[in-house]
């Protein structure tokens, strides 16, 4: 057992976990943050994607104890009250979801992708970058549309307000 502490969605949290506890289970079971999903459990589908110190990582392939001391952002940490994050808003606007199971991972992946491409995104890049996120409803067309729209929207607001990276 280990004592761990980390910042999750801006909130300091701690817990005592078995060393084998995966980050996704710590988030879901200890913290009740069930927006992060376990899909394939084999590191392929990306439903468990969260940001660790600002980078997208698969929380089903990380031990919670490995990231003790880190800053974690999950899907629950994106919206500002009733105001959706631009990527969440774009997924709603463009219907970038069907059953919704992969959506939290898709959105966390999209934000990471947009942050890594300040020069902007094109369709081919978005499709290539979504390599690690699987939508078994196969709703990729609208997901790609949503990511492209969000990328444009976030570029506008970055220019307008000179604000730092979202999430």
């Amino acid at each position, binding site marked *: 057992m*280990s004592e761990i502490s980390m910042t999750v969605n801006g909130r300091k949290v701690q817990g005592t976990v*078995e*060393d*084998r506890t*995966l980050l996704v289970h710590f988030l879901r079971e200890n913290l009740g943050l069930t927006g992060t999903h376990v899909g394939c*459990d*084999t*590191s392929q589908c*990306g439903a468990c*994607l969260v940001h*660790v110190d600002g*980078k*997208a*990582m*698969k929380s089903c*392939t*990380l*031990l919670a*104890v*490995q990231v003790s001391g880190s800053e974690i952002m999950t899907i629950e940490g994106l919206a500002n009250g009733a105001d959706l994050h631009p990527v969440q808003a774009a997924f709603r606007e463009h219907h970038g979801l069907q059953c919704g199971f992969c959506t939290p991972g898709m959105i966390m*992946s999209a934000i*990471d*992708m947009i942050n*890594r491409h300040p020069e902007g995104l094109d369709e081919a890049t978005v499709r290539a*970058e979504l*390599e*690690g*996120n699987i939508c078994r409803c196969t709703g990729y067309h609208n997901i790609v549309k949503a990511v492209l729209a969000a990328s444009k929207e976030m570029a506008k607001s970055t220019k307008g307000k000179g604000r730092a990276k979202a999430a």
Partner: protein
Amino acid sequence: MYAVNYHRAKSVADAAKLGKGDAKYLSGGMTLIPAMKTRLAAPSDLVDLTHIKDLKGITVSGKTVTIGAGTTHYEVATDAKLAKACPAIVYLAGLIGDPAVRHRGTIGGSIANNDPAADYPAAMLALGATITTNKRSLPADKFFKGLFETALKDGEIVTSVSFTVPAKAGYAKFPNPASRYAMTGVFVTKGKDGVRAAVTGAGDDGVFRSKEIEAALSKKFEASALEGVKVPSGSLMEDMHASSDYRAALILAMAKRAVAQANA
């Protein structure tokens, strides 16, 4: 996953001390954690190397490149100096896994694991890289020893890899459509010591240098020099994804693409 005891190493010396008995070293964990989840691996202890600062970073000094073992695939794939010095290895790093995996997986972890379908072992072998550990330095030719086997001994930790930038280098990979691991990947270089061509994903004993490809490219470093070259399939992998004959054909096809990239 079976129960395990986690230790966070502060330094390489600390890690060497902690790595006793059935302990395993944990870097990015992109292979080890899935192996533990499926109980294919069940170490008693994990020694986490990812918080050791000395293991991180890329330096390009003249023609010499040194990459710390704890450097992630993402860091290699996006390093501007390295992209100028040796674009082939930057390209290779960008083909590993997916963006989230590249944020975590490390070059040291990849070569210490020596998966027969991993990308980096081919690069190390073709670049004639030197693998440095906490105990010694050894050439890539002596480091890789077969499927998931290396020359590493208990308590020995890869600390960095280094190589001299060759005049030309290129990599081509035919990814398995499901796993995206290399079904065959070929890394070719032309340097002052001649041509080297290393193949991953295809050999039944892991990464290897192809004599046939090297001989043909030594005459002329062009894709056309590979026309009609026979790659023997006797020691190639054969599985549900591809026969050994198909892999032999892929080696030739990937070698042609790698040479074209190296000459571009």
